């Protein structure tokens, strides 16, 4: 680590955009890595969105011929894979990277170079998965890759891309989880007890434990799929004593905790936004936190509800139906506490708040349709139909995506120093809300009326025409609403209003810093005395229980500490990740790909060796 003690102006001016491509490539600053995650998530969101639109055009009319069955299989497989692993997870990682240290009063994460490595592994994994479209076809066996379909045609490489690509992005998340958990436990500011941590940080902690424990399971499964395909290991080959159901257990034992990995970040974001825009503390804070922890634990005990028709015995089905019903309880507790938070508040309907309220409204629908799935016999009708497609989009789009978009509007001024335009933000919110419901509400009916999912066409006469057409219209409205966001971002970049350090009258520590924050985050590490510490520095409570501004307001313009330790930039994490990318490419095209495997291995070793030999304290001057 470099010891920095430069003049103050210089520290302030080292904003992210100044150092060029090399600066971004070698950065170990958690804020820059957060921006990289966020930017990548937006790009992949465009990719996944285009895939979605192609799917909707194909299904707009019966017997669609816009896409071939072959490209359709690739589209729905990659749409899910992209949105789950390359959009929602990195978007959550973006906020966690950028704000976790700021929220707990730290100057960076525990392992900055590991953090950079996580990002580069994720990015190369995303590129690896996406380029498959141009290299012989993208994965086409579903994002859930049920064996033996996923192990079937080993003459074509598509599911190799899937098995290796998921492995790769999974590695990124696994490394990040170790990093974030350590950061939370080891790097909190003095006085920042666990129960004083912002709820977003709590949710990040739960998510990263979920990742830490669930990713190894899918790692094993994916290795088995890859070996079955390439070496004939017979893990899932029933004719030779293997078991296709085993894959389903492995996949969903990862896959269901993964659902909470996708939704809990949005719950964390919303738990920050609602108090800020209601000017009240989060209602039942400890209950919100503990219900999040409960969801984390229970999330590992419900996986077989994805397998109610797979042929498990009735006792197993009953057991998993019960656990699934009761995971609705902590989820309900959260929703009631959010209502309690805004009740009696002074609600300011700014864009971040609109998205958060939209999140609650839509997530309730997704949660309730989830309860209908727990009624196992009813699920025998619903599973693998568009009803499930509707449900999961109400949770992951109406829930996770709306929540994260709320976070984008909320934290954008902190990250860039400029305010996104409120009017455009509101247009974005209302058009995406209408478009979303137009697209996904009809799918409930389609599913109940008997339309299975993952079907590239449907015949006339089954009554699917009208709702499908409506859903396609809605999907284009969603696309148009996203264009409003991109226009807003462009407009703000050109001539956005300057935000100042605390535009929303925030409650937590990130708002004590300048916007964007200086490279060292905090001039002096704050000493925390309360939950919502910044609020308590600005306001005191009067006798009737209302808050009164403290006069004079707290001085946030502090002299930086004399010796601030910041991580040095390093080129090695990106190099090691690039080497691993070459290894993966080689593994797809066995056996002659072994040459690339060798070359990639050397590059990776060079990266890891250089990384481990790098001096911890570099003398810059």
């Amino acid at each position, binding site marked *: 680590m470099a010891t920095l003690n430069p003049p103050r102006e210089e520290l302030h001016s080292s904003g992210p955009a100044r150092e060029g491509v090399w600066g971004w490539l070698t950065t170990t600053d958690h804020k820059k890595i957060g921006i990289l995650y966020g930017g990548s998530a937006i790009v992949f969101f465009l990719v996944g969105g285009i895939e979605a639109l192609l799917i909707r055009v194909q299904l707009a009319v019966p017997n669609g011929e816009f896409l071939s069955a072959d490209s359709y299989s690739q589209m729905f497989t990659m749409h899910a894979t992209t949105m789950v692993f390359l959009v929602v997870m990195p978007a959550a990682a973006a906020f966690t990277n950028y704000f976790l240290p700021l929220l707990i009063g730290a100057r960076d994460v525990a392992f900055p170079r590991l953090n950079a490595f996580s990002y580069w592994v994720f990015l190369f994994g995303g590129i690896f998965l996406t380029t498959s479209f141009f290299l012989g076809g993208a994965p086409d066996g579903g994002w859930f890759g049920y064996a033996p379909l996923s192990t079937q045609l080993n003459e074509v490489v598509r599911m190799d891309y899937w098995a290796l690509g998921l492995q790769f992005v999974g590695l990124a998340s696994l490394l990040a989880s170790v990093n974030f958990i350590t950061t939370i436990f080891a790097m909190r500011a003095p006085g920042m007890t666990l129960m004083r941590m912002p709820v977003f940080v709590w949710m990040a902690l739960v998510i990263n434990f979920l990742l830490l424990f669930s990713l190894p399971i899918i790692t094993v499964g994916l290795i088995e799929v890859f070996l079955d395909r390439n070496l004939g290991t017979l893990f899932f080959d029933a004719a030779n004593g293997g078991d296709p159901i085993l894959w389903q257990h492995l996949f969903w034992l990862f896959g269901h905790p993964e659902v909470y990995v996708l939704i809990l970040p949005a719950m964390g974001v919303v738990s920050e936004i609602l108090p800020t825009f209601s000017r009240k503390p989060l209602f039942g804070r400890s209950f919100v936190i503990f219900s999040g922890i409960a969801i984390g634990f229970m999330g590992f005990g419900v996986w077989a509800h994805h397998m109610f028709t797979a042929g498990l015995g009735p006792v197993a089905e009953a057991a998993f139906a019960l656990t699934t019903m009761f995971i609705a309880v902590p989820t309900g507790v959260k929703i009631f506490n959010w209502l309690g938070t805004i009740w009696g508040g002074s609600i300011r309907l700014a864009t971040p708040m609109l998205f958060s309220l939209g999140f609650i409204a839509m997530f309730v629908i997704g949660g309730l349709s989830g*309860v209908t799935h727990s009624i196992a*016999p009813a699920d025998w009708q619903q599973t693998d139909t568009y009803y499930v497609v509707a449900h999961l989009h109400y949770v992951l789009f109406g829930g996770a995506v709306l929540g994260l978009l709320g976070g984008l509007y909320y934290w954008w001024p902190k990250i860039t120093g400029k305010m996104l335009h409120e009017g455009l933000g509101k247009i974005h919110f209302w058009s995406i809300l209408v478009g979303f419901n137009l697209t996904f509400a009809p799918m409930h009916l389609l599913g109940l009326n008997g339309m299975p999912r993952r079907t590239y066409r449907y015949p006339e006469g089954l009554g699917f025409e009208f709702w499908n057409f409506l859903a396609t219209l809605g999907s284009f409205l969603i696309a148009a609403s996203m264009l409003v966001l991109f226009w807003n971002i462009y407009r703000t970049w050109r001539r956005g209003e300057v935000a100042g350090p605390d535009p929303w009258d925030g409650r937590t520590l990130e708002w004590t810093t300048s916007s964007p924050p200086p490279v060292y985050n905090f001039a002096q590490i704050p000493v925390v005395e309360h939950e919502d510490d910044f609020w308590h520095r600005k306001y005191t409570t009067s006798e009737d229980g209302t808050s009164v501004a403290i006069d004079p307001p707290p001085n946030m313009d502090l002299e930086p500490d004399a010796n601030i330790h910041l991580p040095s930039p390093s080129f090695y994490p990106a190099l090691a990740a690039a080497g691993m990318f070459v290894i993966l490419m080689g593994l797809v095209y066995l056996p002659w790909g072994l040459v690339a495997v060798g070359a990639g291995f050397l590059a990776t070793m060079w990266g890891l060796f250089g990384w481990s030999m790098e001096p911890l304290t570099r003398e810059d001057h």
Partner: protein
Amino acid sequence: MSVNDGDTGVGSRVIERTLHRKRTLLMLLLFAAILVLSACAGTDRLGIDSIADSDLPQNSLDPAGPAARSIDGLWWLVFWIATAVFVMVEAALVFTIFKFRRRDGKDRPVKQVHGSTRLEIAWTIVPVVLMAALAIPTIATLFELRAEPDPSENALQIGVTGHQWWWEFYYPEYGITTANEMHIPAGRAVYLTMTSADVIHSFWVPRLNGKRDLVPGRTTNLTMEADEPGLFFGQCAEFCGIAHADMRQRVFAESESDFAAWAAAQAEPVTPPTEGLAAAGWDTFQISCSSCHAIDGTSAVAKLAPDLTHFASRTTFAGASIARTDGHLREWLRNPVDLKPMRPEFNDLSAGRVLGMPDLDLTEQQIDELIAFLDTLE
């Protein structure tokens, strides 16, 4: 005042005209979209409209048998409970927003409430009670529907094997093998014993029962029963590869006597035709088709593709995805993958792997002969 009124009148007329123009534009755009998308629509070769007795022939909420009906009952129970919760929560949300939103952008003093243990306990217990209320009928129905039919019910046994991308139905009592179209007696339980020859499929006829997966190397079971004679539509519900959407099935529920007549006719072996176009077709069949297809009573015994013994008694072919007409058969025989996506390039007959019917390079003459032959298989 009057000037103002006039102004407003003109203004509103202008606005109206603009709105009107916008609406016209919107309608035009919508129309264009429909036109463009219709161009993407292919030919319907199935004609469900003309044979289904319902607008929603796969509607799970329109049960036509006891199993589907108990599921339907459970569904409406959970639906109304969920709807009640939905209305209450959304109403509370909207009410709270309207009641406590800032008016004219003005902040007001707010009581800093941190929570209430009493409320927390209440809204933990209420969902627990609701879930318990749902759990009891759920578990009861689950065990009831998963039970084997009582021997006294004299259930009809049918073996189901899923293939990429068609269904094989075997009636052990009658020694009948057929494909994609299942005939059952109405008012009597049918007990399916199912497995898969390749990947996982899922048997689903929504109006008769929920779905059940077919897993290679395992057997699964499903009991279903149709109250009345009728035609029931279904399709594979587990993604099974490229033609998953075209892996459909039909269930014909018939009176006991019609069913008995059907079974007796199906059990009849075939005597190949000896003269005319059909005889030439039989010759072609033996050369080009019999390495995969079987016809009971003849030298064609391969079981890699649908059994064609009484092919002409079926209403459809190709995984019940195409109506069986001579025109469709002709298109099919010219090149099957034009009508249904398959992967015949990966067929390996010696290993028993068939992923679809290849283009057999038949001449138009051979196609005529084959159709004439197939039409004799009643």
